[in-house]
């Protein structure tokens, strides 16, 4: 257990460091630039990061030694439920609770929400906007790190795995409602179920060849018909 905990801490810390460094190096200078500039820089950044890991790990898929036992907890009919699958819930639930508490109840969370609503007004109110944004990026990086470990428990990883996962994560966040933490979890679960049914059901499902198209079709449909997401509130960005 100790090794597992250490893995999570180290990977999360590394993710936090990388993400806040990217923010410091690239996005901070663009704080007053048009929004398009930040977006384009982010696209460029993602390619740089991807190619760094291409340089380190080459094009082959990598996996880690099993961290969690894949023994079954229970079996109903032909359906097995294993420890490593349960482990995902075991990690996600506390993280969600912790994050909700952080954003809703702490001073840091309050400054984060204030900054996202109106950075200038937040600065006038005495919030250190740069520090708050750095913190948000570090937090996001740490969570991505946790997610990556959970992913590695089950699957192989390649230098460009993160691109697809990031898109699916974005779709899940939009589906649940941007800015809504429980919404993101619900959205992610739904996307996962849709993918699984699409690939697993042999009737009435287009099959795994079409999974990506299906996910993006959902994204587009949500953005068009319900941009606030399933659980979210309307933002000016949407409609």
């Amino acid at each position, binding site marked *: 257990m100790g090794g597992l905990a250490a893995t999570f801490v180290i990977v999360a810390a590394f993710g936090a460091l990388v993400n806040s460094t990217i923010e410091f190096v690239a996005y901070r200078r663009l704080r*007053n*630039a048009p929004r398009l500039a930040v977006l384009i820089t982010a696209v460029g950044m993602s390619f740089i990061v991807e190619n760094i890991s291409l340089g380190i790990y080459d094009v082959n898929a990598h996996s880690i030694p099993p961290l969690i036992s894949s023994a079954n907890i229970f079996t109903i009919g032909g359906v097995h439920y294993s420890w490593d699958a349960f482990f995902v819930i075991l990690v996600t639930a506390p993280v969600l609770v912790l994050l909700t508490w952080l954003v809703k109840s702490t001073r840091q969370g309050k400054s984060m929400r204030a900054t996202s609503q109106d950075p200038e007004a937040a600065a006038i109110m005495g919030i250190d906007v740069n520090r708050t944004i750095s913190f948000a990026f570090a937090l996001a990086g740490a969570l991505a790190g946790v997610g990556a470990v959970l992913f590695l428990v089950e699957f192989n990883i390649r230098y460009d795995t993160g691109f697809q996962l990031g898109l699916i994560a974005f779709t899940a966040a939009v589906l649940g409602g941007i800015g809504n933490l429980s919404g993101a979890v619900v959205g992610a679960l739904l996307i996962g179920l849709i993918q699984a049914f699409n690939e697993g059901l042999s009737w009435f499902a287009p099959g795994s060849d079409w999974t990506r198209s299906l996910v993006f079709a959902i994204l587009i449909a949500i953005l068009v018909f319900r941009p606030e997401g399933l659980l979210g509130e309307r933002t000016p960005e949407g409609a």
Partner: protein
Amino acid sequence: MAEWRRIPPRYRGWVPLLVAVPLAVTYPFYVTGLPTNIPVILTLPTVHDSVTILVFVVMAVGLNVVVGYAGLLDLGYVAFYAIGAYTAGWLASGQFQQINFHFGAVGVNSSETGIHISVWLVLLLAGVVTAIGGILIGLPTLRLRGDYLAIVTLGFGEIIPQFVRNGDDLHGFDLTHGTFGISPIDAPGFGQTLHNAVGLPVRYDNSFPPTPDRLFFWTVLGILLLTVFCSMRLRDSRLGRAWIAIREDETAAGAMGIPLMRTKTWAYAIGAFFGGIAGAYVATFNSGAFPSQFDFNISIFLLCMVILGGMGSIWGVVLAGTILAWLNVEGLANIGSWLNSNVFPSSHQIDVPKYEFGIYGIIIVLMMLFRPIGLIPERRRKREIEEGSLGPLDEPLYEMRGADEPGAGERGESERIPRG
């Protein structure tokens, strides 16, 4: 440079063009005589590779309409490229064996099955079909702003290639021939009548010595010049000024009575039109449309051209597009082998083309951070960014620009205020 000063300022901009166009047109004649051991870059592109390069430049100029003029970040431009290529595949090949339809195709035996329409017409039709595709993609999504639009376009850029890859069994109907792609596709040509009358080539094939590459090269050069011309005229048109107004401030543009949805959809349609023509041209040049051509990376590659050249700047995009497309086609491989034999020790050889997209990423980030106006900035854009860095705008945008810019009045800058 006394001679340079003697040229009236308003004509100076044409000088590089008057040098570049003849150089480009005569390129096939002198390229074989050029040295093949130039430091760093080794060689200049062959005529065959130049065709691919110029097609990419056409697409970059098309993307520039969407990203540069209208300020809509499109991360799925490759979808238009794919639609164009497959339209050519459907209308000028033997893909649909159930049908036998011929219309003006040259060098195709009339007993061959499939749809065979004249490639010139197909290029135009591909542009139109893709523009309609652009409108269909645009209508539901252009209401969204910024980040959301970028992700949705990215989604379309992923869906359409997946569709063509899997479209060989749509309820038993083979639309796209799956991973094999549609091949062969008819070659362009002018037919026997025009050949006899004015000597135009019958068909772009090996009957034209030494290879048909030269014909393809001149044709795509013509398409590029036409694209650039349309793009310039559009920029200065009422529609173009409306795009730029939306790019600068969507809310203000809307308040001035610019129909936002219609104007943005037009940007999409016109950008798509150029992308479609380019796609169809590549299809006829390669005599095939293959799903592996339409990777997401192409969209980023084209975006990088627009950023490097300067968003909204046509000549900048043409220049940056030429450089980057050359890097993609053979430049990186050449530079890599030069570096490996001259700089890196043999124990640390680096496969440079492998990191192609990392290099583009670095270019994008560096340009956005240090020179967001691009290599050859568009005048209006330059001022906009400079104002942005000075802080909030406390003076009215347009008066400030026209008044103290020397020479702005003579090109009618002050009359170009969007009237709404």
